[in-house]
C-alpha cells in the first residue's frame, strides 16, 4: 500500500476547520457541564433535602451507566417523535452536556467532601452563612483538589465530540469521514487526524497545566 499524503495536505483547510469546530464544541460543552455539574455536585454533597438528593443520584446513575452514543441518538432521533426538533449541533451539545454534567457532578462532590470539616466549623465560628462558606471557603479548595480530574474530563470531552459525527455535526471526525468517503485514502486521513487530535490535546493540557500552576499553586511548595 503506498501512502499518498497529498490528500490530507491538500484538504488541510477543511480538516483545520473541523479541528477548530471540535475545539469550540469542547469548550462550550465543558463550560456548560461545569456550571450544572458544580450545582449538582453541591446538591449531592451537602444538601439535606432528601427528594433532591434522590433525584440527583438517579440522574447521575442513569447517565453514567449508559453509553453516550445512545444518549446522543435518543436526543437527536428520539425527541422528534415527541415533536421536539433540534439541529444536530444543538442536540449534540445538549447530549454532551447532559452526559458530562453527571461526571463533573461526581468529581465536584468528591472535591467538596475532601475539604477538611474543620473548615466548615471555622467558617461558622466567624459568622459566615452556609452559602458564603460554600462559595468563599469550600469551593476554591475543592476545585484545587479536583483540578487534575477536571482536566481529564476536558480531554474526554475533546475526544467524545467525535461521537457527534454520527448525527452529522461537522467536527474533525465527521470531516475526516466525508473526506474518506470521497477519496478512500483511509490510512492517510485518519493517521493525519490522529496527529491533529494529539496536537489539540497537547495544547489543551499545556494551557490547563499553566492555569493549574497559576491559580492553584501547590500548598506545600
Amino acid at each position, binding site marked *: *500500500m503506498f501512502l499518498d499524503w497529498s490528500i490530507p495536505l491538500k484538504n488541510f483547510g477543511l480538516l483545520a476547520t473541523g479541528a477548530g469546530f471540535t475545539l469550540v464544541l469542547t469548550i462550550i460543552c465543558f463550560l456548560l457541564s461545569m456550571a450544572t455539574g458544580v450545582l449538582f455536585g453541591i446538591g449531592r454533597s451537602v444538601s439535606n433535602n432528601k427528594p433532591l438528593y434522590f433525584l440527583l443520584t438517579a440522574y447521575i446513575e442513569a447517565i453514567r451507566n449508559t453509553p453516550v452514543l445512545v444518549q446522543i441518538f435518543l436526543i437527536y432521533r428520539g425527541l*422528534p417523535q415527541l415533536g421536539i426538533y433540534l439541529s444536530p449541533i444543538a442536540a449534540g451539545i445538549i447530549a454532551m452536556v447532559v452526559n458530562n454534567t453527571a461526571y463533573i457532578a461526581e468529581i465536584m462532590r468528591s472535591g467538596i467532601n475532601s475539604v477538611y470539616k474543620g473548615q466548615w466549623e471555622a467558617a461558622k465560628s466567624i459568622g459566615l452563612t452556609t452559602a458564603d462558606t460554600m462559595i468563599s471557603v469550600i469551593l476554591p479548595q475543592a476545585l484545587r483538589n479536583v483540578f487534575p480530574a477536571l482536566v481529564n474530563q476536558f480531554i474526554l470531552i475533546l475526544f467524545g465530540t467525535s461521537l457527534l459525527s454520527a448525527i*452529522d455535526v461537522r467536527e474533525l471526525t*465527521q470531516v475526516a469521514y466525508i473526506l*474518506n*468517503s470521497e477519496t*478512500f485514502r483511509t490510512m492517510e486521513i485518519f*493517521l493525519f487526524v490522529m496527529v491533529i487530535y494529539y496536537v489539540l490535546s497537547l495544547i489543551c493540557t499545556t494551557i490547563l497545566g499553566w492555569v493549574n500552576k497559576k491559580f492553584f499553586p501547590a500548598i506545600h511548595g
Partner: protein
Amino acid sequence: MRKLLVFVFVSLFALIGVIGCQEGGSNAAATQEKSHLQQILERGKIVVGITLTFPPFGMQNAQGEPEGYEVDLAKALADSLGVELEIVDVVGEARIPSLETDKIDVMLGNFTRTLTRAQKIDFTDTYIVAAQRMIVQKGSSIKTVQDLAGKKVVVLRGSTNAEVMKSLGIDAEITYLATGAEGVLAVKNGQNDAFVEDSNFLAYQAKMNPELEVVGDALSLKEYQGFGIKKGDQQWLNYLNLFLFDVNYISGVNDELYMKWFGTNHPFPRNPEY
C-alpha cells in the same frame, strides 16, 4: 519542555514513517500470496461482507441472523465452492478498507462500480442494476431532482450521491449519515427533506413505511453493481465472474432471488448493449 515537545513530534512522525514502510513491505509480500480462491478452499470457509442495514439487500431477522437478497446470493456462492459461509456486516464507508485489510474475501453491499473505486479494488461483472432516486414524505413539494436545490438532503457516507448532485449543479444542504436506516428515519422524522439512494432499496423502504414515497427520475445514469475484491487477485476475479455468469444467464438463480426479495422482475438488462 520545548525539547520534550520536539522529541515527541519527531518520534510520532518517525512512527508514521515506519508504519508506512511496513505497509509497503507487506504489500510486496502479498503479491506472492495465495489467491483468495485457494485460501477459501483450504480453510473451508468464505467470509463475505454485506451491509446488513440495507434491506432488502442485507438485513437481520428477528433472531439476529442475516437475511436478504445479497445474503441469499452469498449462500449460492458458498454452495458453489462447497464451503461454509460467514457473513460480516460492513457499512458503506468501510467496504474498501475491509477488502484492503483482508477482513473479508468479497464484498457484496450494493457496490456501484466507479472508476475512482476501481483504482483501489477490483470489481466483478454486474449482478444488479440500479438508478439513484429520492424518498420523501408523501405530499412533499419535491417531485424532481431539480427540486432538491436548497433542501436538506441525506446521502450516505461512502456513496457516490453527493458527487453526482454536485456534478448536476444541484446546490442542496447535504447531511452525511452512516446507514440507510438512519437516512429513512431522518426523512420520516422530518429532520431532512429527502434521502437519495439506490432505487431498489428505496422502493422496499416505501413499501415498509406507507407515509413515505419514492419520487423523481433517476438522479444519475444507471449504476451497475458488482462484487468488490482486493486488487490484483485475478484467479479469484475469474471465479467470481464465472459464478455470476452462471447465476445470471444459465441457472437463473439471480432472477429468482430478485423476484423473491423485490417482488418484481429485474428492471434493467445486466449486460447492456454499448
